[in-house]
């Protein structure tokens, strides 16, 4: 009875037993088409989007140590050496944008904790201190996190002028032997 099956029936049930190299080839070809077409779609969408990013980051030069992404327009960055210098000169207020628990484990001495998800509450509590500072340096865990950017953008929105993002963040600070303070107090 199995011999009476038509080829159409077999094609309609593409199980491994009924599929040969051509089926495997068509599956692979389909996968390649999906990946290539989707990637092209992504590149076009990125080009058209106001949040689009450069495909080849200008800052990712040979060393690979510099942050890979351009910061949002109007937001300035600050490198590790300059951040350490600002800390020792007490010329900037440091804002730690990481969650409270990570801040409590250890943070840059004097840094205040303002995570983006509790920005309004924390800003109201610390408004006087933040408004007195001539320069603000915001950091989070490292280059991969966006919390510092989010907080910096919020500060710029409410009129703060000199806001810098320390993109390399907490890990680079610790790695460079920067001072650290444990506990929930600044």
């Amino acid at each position, binding site marked *: *009875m*199995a011999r009476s*099956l038509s080829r159409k*029936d*077999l094609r*309609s*049930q*593409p*199980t*491994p037993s009924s599929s040969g190299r051509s089926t495997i080839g*068509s*599956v*692979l*070809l*389909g*996968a390649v*088409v*999906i*990946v290539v*077409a*989707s*990637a092209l*779609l*992504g*590149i076009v*969408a*990125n080009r058209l*989007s106001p*949040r*689009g*990013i*450069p*495909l*080849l*980051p200008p800052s*990712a030069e040979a060393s*690979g140590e*510099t942050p*890979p*992404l351009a910061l*949002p327009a109007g937001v300035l960055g600050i490198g590790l050496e300059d951040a350490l210098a600002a800390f020792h000169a007490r010329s900037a207020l440091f804002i730690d944008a990481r969650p409270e628990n990570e801040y409590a484990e250890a943070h840059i001495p004097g840094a205040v904790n303002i995570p983006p998800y509790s920005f309004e509450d924390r800003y109201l509590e610390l408004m006087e201190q933040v408004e007195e500072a001539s320069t603000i340096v915001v950091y989070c*865990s*490292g*280059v*991969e*996190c*966006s919390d510092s950017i989010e907080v910096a953008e919020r500060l710029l929105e409410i009129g703060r002028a000199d806001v810098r993002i320390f993109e390399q963040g907490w*890990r680079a600070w610790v790695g460079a032997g920067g001072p650290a303070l444990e506990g929930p107090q600044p």
Partner: protein
Amino acid sequence: MKGNPVARLLRHPVVGALCRLVLGGVFIYTSLPKVMHPDEFARLVYGYRVLHPDMVNLVGVTLPWVELVAGVFLVVGLLPRSSALVLGGLLALFIGAGFLALARGLDIECGCFFPFMGDHKLTWDLLVRDAVLILFALQVMVWPSGFLPARRRRARPSEP
């Protein structure tokens, strides 16, 4: 194998449809914020330290769209085996990248469900979850089904 109830269950069209919906749905759900915020996603990719920095932005821009398109294809039943192959391959890559990151002791964000569910630290159990999702992809690749499970049932040739 026909007599094995587990095998019969695994190849059942309803199970296939569920696998497609779950796997495709997860990828659609997680890809949307990445599509909308390629800059943030690129930072998370950078955190894994498995790509050269020059490649990070390109992956940040294109990978979410691959996830989205393959997820949609899988849910609607268009090229289901190819879509499952793409998503299964991505899951394998995620496991590999996560393994390398954890083995090197990196304390980084997973980036898996950001930002809907908050940032999750990359942990071993997330790699196990990805491995479970690969099983869903394998089910679809081995026993693909169309949009409606009944369609496949109708197309099945009569048993000898």
